[in-house]
């Protein structure tokens, strides 16, 4: 990497990298972003067609594996991407340490709760076979 010359000689020979998570957050945010490009286009098409449809039609749509699987992936990738993004916003704007930690926890809890509830509803439709 081009940043190599910015590191101290000691850091270079130790070669240990970051003491914490390094670029993991950045990389996961980009990976989920790339995954969400096709997934969200598919989701918009599905949602626009079925948001006003009768309950039976929606349940039947998501009972098919070809729709349930991309929807499951969309829920996973979007809630994870959301938690990473909101984390950055909290870290940028909240400087009181206690408040920040509380909000960071709340952010992760909310993402898991929304993701789990959405995924459960989806699996219920997928397995009940409409």
């Amino acid at each position, binding site marked *: 990497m081009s940043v190599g010359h910015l590191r101290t000689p000691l850091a270079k020979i130790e070669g240990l990298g970051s003491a914490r998570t390094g670029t993991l957050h950045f990389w996961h945010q980009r990976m989920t972003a790339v995954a969400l490009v096709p997934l969200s286009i598919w989701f918009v098409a599905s949602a*626009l067609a079925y948001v006003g449809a009768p309950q039976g039609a929606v*349940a039947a749509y998501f009972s098919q594996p070809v729709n349930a699987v991309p929807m499951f992936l969309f829920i996973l990738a979007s809630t994870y991407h959301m938690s990473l*993004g*909101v984390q950055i916003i909290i870290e940028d704007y909240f400087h009181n*340490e206690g408040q920040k930690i509380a909000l960071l926890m709340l952010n992760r809890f909310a993402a898991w709760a929304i993701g789990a509830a959405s995924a459960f*509803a989806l699996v219920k439709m997928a397995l009940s076979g409409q």
Partner: protein
Amino acid sequence: MADAPNSPGPRPRPFGRPLSPHLQIYRWPITMAASITHRATGIALAAGTLLLCWWLIAAASGPDSYALFAGVAANPLGEIVLFGFLWSLCFHLLNGIRHLAWDVGYGFKVPTAKLTAALVYVGSLLLAAGAFAIGLMVRGGLGT
């Protein structure tokens, strides 16, 4: 640390001293507006996942609980929220692609960055309006 024992803490600004520039002072280049909009649409989409969650739970719970969701969604206010969610998604998607291009080193020249920001605004509006219109036609076809 905000609460360090000897921290001076915020003090009133002495009269006549210069104030460093901040959000209300800067003029708004379109690149800055796009950056702020990206964050704002991200927050809007995060709130929107609650609606998505509601839709899926309602559909999984049977016709009775779905009726409440369908009623709200069919309301003009529901349509406005739906369009807002759709436009936020289109903007965040297009500007996200712009960000990914930056990540691999493309589009950093100022005129290019300005042009792509404008394209994201126009493109997201066109995309959202077009998709919304198609959606209205499709849903009309389903007979709701």
